[in-house]
């Protein structure tokens, strides 16, 4: 494999991983825009979606793709239920209470998954195929191409939804100022639920997309969620485009640093870059308002 082939391989893998981080990071952005708080359970919503998919597939009565779509829809419902039961009562409390609650929900998700499915990684049906597309000496996996494509389509849809649809515009209004939006006749409770539905669905999509490659395991939300969180901070916490660029950058940096510097230091490199960017631009690459406390 020549130098340029190696570079192509590294960049392609970095972008695919970055696309996954971006999908999860979008969930962080949605919740942050709506509530002004980090949702630390976001990675675990991804894990939940993944295990829901695995469970539906294992029943063997539903076709695979239907099971995956159903898993994403069920995750959206799960997001709504958690919002009603756990998060909504804390909406007017100090943001630290809300934050703690997201951490608690994450722990509960992980422990339930461990009780039901065990601590060992589980095989997820490989519905994306094993194909490898040769580009010179580099091999690009069809699975990675799918992951990247789906992530791109989702981002475009989300941007369209927020810019063009009435519900999307209402959600943006609520994220600007919940109280004013409510006075303008927007159903803020419905809005909040919809936000959670979309962000959990995004997580679940990321989960069922990566599980054929990385398996399903109860801690997957933490290992991928942390990288996604970095992407979200790097991108600027309240920008959809920022989360996507942040995710792709973190994925690229990790892979480039791993191959061209040292695999021992690949995480160090991405975190050093993250810190440097935050020192230079405290609001992140695309952030407008930085951190803002909730109500």
């Amino acid at each position, binding site marked *: *494999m020549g130098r340029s082939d*190696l570079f192509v*391989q*590294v960049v392609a*893998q970095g972008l695919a*991983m970055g696309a996954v981080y971006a999908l999860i990071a979008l969930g962080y952005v949605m919740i942050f825009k709506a509530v002004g708080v980090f949702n630390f359970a976001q990675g675990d919503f991804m894990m939940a979606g993944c295990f829901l998919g695995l469970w539906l597939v294992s029943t063997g009565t539903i076709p695979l793709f239907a099971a995956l779509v159903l898993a994403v829809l069920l995750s959206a419902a799960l997001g709504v239920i958690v919002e009603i039961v756990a998060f909504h009562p804390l909406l007017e409390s100090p943001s630290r209470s809300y934050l703690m609650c997201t951490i608690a929900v994450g722990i509960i998700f992980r422990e339930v998954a461990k009780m039901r499915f065990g*601590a*060992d*990684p*589980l*095989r997820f049906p*490989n519905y994306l195929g*094993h194909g*490898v597309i*040769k580009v010179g000496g580099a*091999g690009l*996996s069809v*699975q*990675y191409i799918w992951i990247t494509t789906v992530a791109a389509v989702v981002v475009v849809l989300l941007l369209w939804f927020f810019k063009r649809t009435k519900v999307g515009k209402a959600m943006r209004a609520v994220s600007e100022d919940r109280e004013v939006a409510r006075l303008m006749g927007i159903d803020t409770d419905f809005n909040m639920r919809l936000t959670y539905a979309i962000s959990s669905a995004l997580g679940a999509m990321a989960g069922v997309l990566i599980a054929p*490659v*990385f*398996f399903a395991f109860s801690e*997957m939300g933490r*290992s*991928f969620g942390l990288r996604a969180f970095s992407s979200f901070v790097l991108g600027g916490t309240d920008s959809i485009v920022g989360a996507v660029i942040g995710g792709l950058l973190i994925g690229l940096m*990790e*892979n480039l*640093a*791993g*191959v061209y510097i040292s*695999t*021992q230091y*690949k995480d160090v490199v991405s975190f050093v870059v993250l810190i440097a960017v935050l020192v230079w631009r405290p609001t992140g690459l695309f952030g407008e308002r930085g951190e803002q406390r909730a109500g």
Partner: protein
Amino acid sequence: MMRKLVGIALCGLMVSTLFLSACSSAPKEVKIGLVVPLSGGSAGPGINLQRGVMLAAEDMNAKGGIKGMQVKVLSEDDESNPVKTVNAVKKLIYEDKAVVVIGSNASSCTLAAMDVAAKAKVPLITPSSSSDEITRQGNKYIFRVTASNSTQANALVDYAVQQLGLKKMAIVYASDDYGTNAKEAVVARLATHGLTPLAVEAFQPKDKDLSSQLTKVKATGAEGLFFLAMYDPCALAAKTLQQMGYMPQIMGLGALTNVRLVELAGDAAMGIINTQMYVPEGKTEADKAFIEKYKAKYNTLPDYYVALAYDSMMVAAKAIERAGSLDPQKIRDELAKTKDHPGLGGNLTFDETGDVQRSVKIVKVVGVNPPKYEVVWPK
């Protein structure tokens, strides 16, 4: 004041009961301590180790025990946490009065508990910890039943170079005790063949993305990849390599032989080779009987953990029999004399460091659904 008095009186009572129980009549049973992970991430191997020891104890007891004394196994769970191993071994030796302790599984756990055993002068037999460090420390009370990383690495490297004719090698290893030691062993043996690995890449045991490491390996064009870690990351690596359209011969030490490797990696696991101490082939009468008994009880085939633990218990029982005493020091001296003990996976002899001299098999994944292994060495 009154409280203090009551306290002192209670303490006195406790001490006297302890004293009395210690002075009770001649023992009717042999207490064997067992410390393995029975919960947490390594519970799978731990439970099989426990089954192996239990099965051996039942076999001994069915034949009338050791010199008329029944074998009693006392199990402790260390969750693969070295601190808990140390505490468990202390409890087994000082409270339960075990005369031999079998355990633990992870090398770091056994390394931590060895000193406790040596201080108490009670032999510790590890069925499955393979780090070379264990028998390099001059500890007179440690014995090992599985082959060390070096012994396994020697067999594997020789096979790869001489039988498979591979020359361009790469290594990917987990940066824990096991992986680091295994890497050193493989590098050392490659050097005796005049080979230097083209890439040596580490990963954190918790890493879930090995693509950078494997891309570097791919860039060197290596034909053989030594993957020195547990089976979960290896399954991930096999799939990642498959996606890169690059299929080197993957080779591992001991830790890769697990059905879960094949279950997780699917057809990407085909052709992976791995050193092994025991494969349920049923070639000897003793092995046949062992497989049948195990199948009848657990409805599945025994794996190498079960066999290693079974052999550990049997080696201990033979030493106690020869010692004709329950004095741990005498049992230790007899253990050290173990020579050509007919174990399930071959004959076992302890050298002066407590390490085992035994043959090592090499197995290959030849079927995915259902998972199937074949012994490729010795032929």
